[in-house]
């Protein structure tokens, strides 16, 4: 009887070890059977709500592909651009596939994968606003979403050109920039070329056009996870590589970007 008790105790201990909190995030996701994926849904066509108000978009498809690859259930969490890194570091999500640009400042606080998409930063203005080059933005009221690369790149360029930044204001989210532009609170908004194309398809923006590009900047975006989760980072890198290798990247490009050319995710002269 005593031997049985000992064996039972050992069995329980071994089982407890198996499900203990000593594995890394990847282990936890697999054993929990669920992944929480953060997405930004006011940034079409990477993330938006479709006609039935369901999350849709390139980023949302990548979340679905990821959960399928891991063999776990997907839980999507919608957030604004400014909430991505805080949500990740607070443990509210396991991974964020939300078009997060891979800046060195952010890399101090989050773990970045290899790029999975690339944008050009562009200005959106009213048709007759007379803004034809980046320099025409001087003195105009400009806004972009808080903490995004459109914001940091605009302010960097403005500083290089010697403009004062008092005409710039941050909007709390991407959808706030849309509201600011439509209400005339801003003369121009800085965002990505892809979302401008998408927004201009709707009637609301019939008086608006795509304006000049923000010079000399390719906006590479990555999947982000907690900075200390190396297992996750490695898995994301392989996942992204596989998405391209298997043709899924091209397939989704066609689905969301029609016939526009598939974008190259590498930089010449250096590994990725």
């Amino acid at each position, binding site marked *: 009887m005593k031997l049985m008790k000992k064996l039972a105790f050992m069995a329980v201990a071994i089982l407890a070890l198996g499900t203990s*909190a000593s594995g890394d995030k990847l282990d936890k996701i697999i054993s929990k059977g669920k992944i929480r994926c953060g997405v930004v849904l006011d940034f079409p066509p990477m993330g938006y709500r479709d006609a039935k108000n369901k999350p849709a978009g390139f980023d949302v498809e990548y979340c679905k592909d990821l959960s399928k690859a891991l063999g776990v259930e997907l839980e999507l969490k919608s957030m604004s651009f400014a909430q991505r890194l*805080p949500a990740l570091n607070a443990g509210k999500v396991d991974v964020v596939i939300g078009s997060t640009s891979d800046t060195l*400042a*952010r890399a*101090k*606080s989050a773990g970045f994968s290899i790029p999975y998409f690339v944008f050009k930063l562009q200005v959106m203005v009213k048709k007759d606003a007379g803004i034809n080059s980046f320099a025409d933005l001087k003195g105009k009221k400009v806004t972009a979403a*808080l903490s995004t690369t459109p914001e940091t790149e605009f302010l960097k360029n403005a500083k290089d050109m010697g403009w004062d930044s008092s005409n710039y204001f*941050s909007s709390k989210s991407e959808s706030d920039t849309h509201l600011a532009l439509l*209400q005339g609170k801003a003369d121009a908004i800085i965002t990505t070329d892809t979302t401008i194309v998408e927004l201009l398809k709707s009637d609301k923006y019939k008086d608006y056009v795509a304006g000049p590009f923000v010079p000399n900047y390719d906006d590479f975006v990555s999947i982000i996870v907690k900075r*200390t989760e190396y297992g996750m980072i490695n898995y994301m890198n392989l996942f992204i590589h596989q998405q391209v290798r298997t043709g899924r990247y091209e397939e989704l490009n066609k689905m969301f970007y029609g016939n526009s050319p598939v974008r190259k995710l590498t930089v010449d002269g250096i590994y990725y």
Partner: protein
Amino acid sequence: MFDIDYTFHWITVWNVFPEMLSAALVTLEVAITSMIVGLIIAIFLALGKDSKNELFRTPAVVWIEIARNTPALFQIYMAYFGLGAFGIHLSPYIAVLAALIFNNAGYLAETLRGGFAAIPRTQMSASRSLGMTVFQTYRHIILPQVLRIVYHPMTNQMIWSILMTSLGTLVGMLELTGKTDQLQSLSFRTFEFYMVAAMMYFVIAKLVLLGSKLLSRRLFRGDA
């Protein structure tokens, strides 16, 4: 057990602390201005609500009811985005100031009404019979008593005002919360920045409380 593997970088906050301090001054500025202007308007609203003349009563009632029964956030949004839809563009600072004046006036009006109710009506008749005008009576006799009565509820409202300015961040105003949000978005050290901002609000509230205690001792000298 706890999924916390976050290392705090307090130095990032310390490097930009002066900016947070000047934003805290903006917060105080807005809170104090909205209290003072709100109080002045509240006096008229309180008298208006109790007046027998419908021309004064209706606007006063409408103002007080809307101010007290809708969220302050809603009032700020209306001042900034709502007016914006009609083409009236207030800067975030003015929009928040206007909304908080609106809000404070409504709440203070109710507090003042309680104060006015505590003053016997006979005081007005007595001072009128001595030849003082209505205005003089209010100025020298009734209002000083009312202010004494409502002073402590008003300090509550003052602290409430300070904390409500934090909603200004949602319309882009650079008071303490807005500035904190902007600074943490550059370095992504959310926890550190918000913890420091919370402590700053706490300290500001306590300082205002202390200031009001000292002020009350000066204003109401000779009282029990």
